[in-house]
């Protein structure tokens, strides 16, 4: 039995167009069995392309994909019964009712009708099952898509941007559903660029940028030593001197609008003492917990910067060329 629900090695995909566009660039992804795994990345970072490759909808140019140890796409039919997925927005026949759409999918895989009734009830759609899909709200469409994935009673659920366009109640509902599914022992892979929602439910995350893996691990591991910092607000004219004092003490100082964020310091009292010894008195002082969003922005920004630098090195700047 594989340790990973999903693993990819050196996965690549580029699209032909006027210019060849690399969507996924040697991605090594590991999604452990069980729990919610957040698949994070800015728009255009290759999340949806990766998910489509996992589901055999598009062919990778290179690299390996395994789902529960089965090689994809070669042996995808052997494992697809264990995988439920919603790619981007829910896609069904608009003029068929919710029930008809589910019954057609169920009959395509030999699932009996009672299961359709069951998943409709599980997702709270029994009352509207006889209405046309086109008349559903976005939240209901999303619930129908979840109902469809549950027809197979899957071990792995893949949700691509599941809360796009939903209102807060809808977002909460989807989040709760994903958590519940994971608590039932399934693996849930959820791709998103909305970090706050993933942070609340994900056990592990992978962050990608420009089609490459930037970071992977548990949320706590990703946040790591950035977990806490101290926020200090001083008089504007004292900011520069305070930064010098704290840096000299071996701390990392970042500017955050009118405040200074001091990384590496876990106790605000230590920072207060250092500043007071130099005659600097904080107007505000407190501990700040760094969220996944800050780390994500920092990592994806670093990745982008690194890429730009690599590109510059490859092509040479104007001065270097001269």
């Amino acid at each position: 039995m594989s340790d990973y629900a999903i693993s990819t090695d050196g996965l690549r995909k580029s699209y032909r167009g006027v210019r060849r566009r690399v969507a996924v660039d040697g991605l090594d992804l590991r999604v452990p069995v069980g729990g919610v795994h957040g698949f994070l990345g800015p728009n255009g970072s290759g999340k949806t392309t990766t998910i489509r490759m996992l589901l055999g909808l598009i062919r990778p140019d290179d690299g390996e994909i395994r789902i529960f140890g089965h090689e994809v796409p070669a042996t995808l039919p052997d494992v697809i019964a264990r995988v439920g997925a919603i790619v981007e927005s829910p896609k069904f026949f608009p003029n068929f009712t919710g029930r008809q759409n589910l019954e057609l999918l169920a009959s395509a895989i030999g699932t009996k009708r009672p299961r359709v009734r069951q998943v409709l009830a599980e997702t709270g759609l029994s009352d509207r099952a006889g209405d046309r899909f086109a008349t559903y709200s976005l939240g209901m469409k999303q619930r129908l898509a979840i109902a469809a994935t549950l027809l197979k009673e899957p071990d792995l659920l893949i949700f691509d941007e599941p809360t796009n366009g939903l209102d807060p109640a809808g977002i909460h509902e989807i989040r709760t559903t994903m958590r519940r599914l994971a608590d039932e022992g399934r693996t849930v892979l959820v791709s998103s660029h909305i970090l706050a929602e993933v942070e609340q439910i994900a056990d592990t995350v992978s962050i990608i940028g420009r089609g490459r893996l930037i970071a992977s691990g548990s949320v706590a591991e990703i946040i790591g030593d950035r977990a806490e910092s101290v926020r200090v607000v001083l008089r504007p004219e004292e900011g520069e001197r305070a930064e010098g004092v704290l840096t000299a003490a071996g701390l990392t100082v970042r500017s955050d609008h009118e405040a200074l964020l001091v990384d590496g310091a876990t106790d605000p009292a230590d920072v207060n003492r250092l500043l007071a010894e130099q005659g600097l008195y904080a107007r505000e002082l407190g501990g700040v917990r760094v969220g996944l969003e800050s780390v994500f922005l920092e990592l994806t920004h670093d990745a982008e910067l690194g890429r730009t630098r690599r590109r510059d090195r490859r092509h040479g700047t104007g001065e270097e060329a001269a």
Partner: protein
Amino acid sequence: MLLRTELRRLRIRRLVWLFVVAGVLGSFFVLFTTWVSAQPITDEMREQAEVAYQDQLERWEEHGEEEIERCEEEQARIADETGEDPGFDCADMMPQREHFLPHEQSLAEHVDWSGLTSAIMVLGVVGLAIGTTAVAAEFSSGAMATLLTFQPRRLRVYAGKVGAVALATVPLSLLLCTILGVGMWAIFEIRGLDATVSDALLWTAVRALALLPAAAIVGAVLAFLLRSTAVVLAVVAGFAIGWEAIGVGMAQTLAPFSIRTNLVGWLQYGTTYFVNTCESQPDGSVFCDSTEQTLSFAWNAGFLAVVGVLLIAVAALVFRRRDLS
């Protein structure tokens, strides 16, 4: 399993029923035009023909000999120039009464001259529309991608969908062919015209049964290739105008490779087409002759089968390898 699913989907698809209604209405429109064209000769038409005949006979009695003389001179001149007798039959130029009566069509003639073309139009368009829209809707709604996350074996999905449109259109084909066939026969009977149903005509009707399912398969296959009803329609219209009308129309030697010609041949158990050959004469004029060429039923059936199998195979390969967004 997939075939049953697809048949069920087609059954609950409203657009399919809309095309069924359109097919029935189209068939009745064809019957209406048949009713209008299947005119028996009335007493009034006979009287008019008699007047015209008598008028021509009078002229012939006055100038007949001169006309025969002129005809023979022309015949001799052409024979001198070309070395061949043009066969003007100058002695038979006298007006005949039957030449002035309008032709009374028989059922067999009506089917040959216009009935088949109308039937091809109705059955072909309805079949093509059902097949194309059924598959293209899956691409445009994204339901194809959803289905493939349940059944990733693409060739099975392809075979299921193409097979389903073929099977689902068989009863409709029976219905429309019955309406057209029985309707045309009934009209000729009611009009008191020759409504004899020969074996050949009966077999034509039997072979016409394959038309609608075949068109539905072609529509589905084209939709797999092009993924949009609008694009399929544009390609079919482009083919009909560019190849069938302009290409084959201008170069009649291409007729053996025309879908329309071979469809007619399939229905009529072989067909003919004409090729014009023109030669410059020593006096600078151009002499054109039209020769009739025959296409056997084996050629017609073989050509259509090869085109069909090629289309099905290419679409299967494309669908198997294509990225789905």
